[in-house]
């Protein structure tokens, strides 16, 4: 089955990104494909390359980047939401790209399921 994932909240502050990550891993393990993760609202903060969590904590920015590379997942940061919050090319972490909101509707059309994780 083909999945699209929408993440509405930044890393750490809400569990949304964590749950979405664990879901994505589990879906892949079960043989499904996650086509795209779309980062909207504060979700754009998941792409901040400067994020530096404590050494005993998970690094969500890196976890997403690595997972995307390994399983060819398209990580898209909403340009409008990113501009507002200062997530731009200068701080964009590896594995993410910035694009328009249309990419969210598009993945809703292309995927069998679209799941939202937020607050």
């Amino acid at each position, binding site marked *: *089955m083909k999945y699209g994932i929408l993440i*509405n909240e930044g890393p750490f502050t809400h*569990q949304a990104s964590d*749950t979405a990550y664990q879901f994505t*891993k*589990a879906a892949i393990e079960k043989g499904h494909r996650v086509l795209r993760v779309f980062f909207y609202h504060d979700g754009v903060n998941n792409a901040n390359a400067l994020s530096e969590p404590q050494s005993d904590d998970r690094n969500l920015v890196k976890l997403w980047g690595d997972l995307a590379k390994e399983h060819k997942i398209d990580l898209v940061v909403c340009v409008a939401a990113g501009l507002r919050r200062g997530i731009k090319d200068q701080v964009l972490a590896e594995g993410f790209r910035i694009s328009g909101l249309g990419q969210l509707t598009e993945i809703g059309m292309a995927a069998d399921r679209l*799941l*939202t994780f937020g607050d």
Partner: protein
Amino acid sequence: MLHLVNKSPFERQAFESCLGVARKGSAILLIEDGVYAALKNTPFEAKVTEAIKDVKICVLGPDLEARGVDQVIEGVEVVDYGGFVDLTTEHNPVQSWL
């Protein structure tokens, strides 16, 4: 369809609103702070027990463990992330009560 509830029923309206809309044959998965709705000995136990007659109610085990709670209401099914995935293949659409 599958309803996802990630809010504590004590603090937010989300779970009650979900119960008000969930129809026979649909499923509810309680995740994150939503797992507190799955516990015994709360004001929500009776509502959950009643709802289970029509709706499948599941709760995410990893989120129960993280919160140190395990007294799940009878009839509520505990699933892991793989079970979460299975619920989404069995139901559509998947709607989050944010």
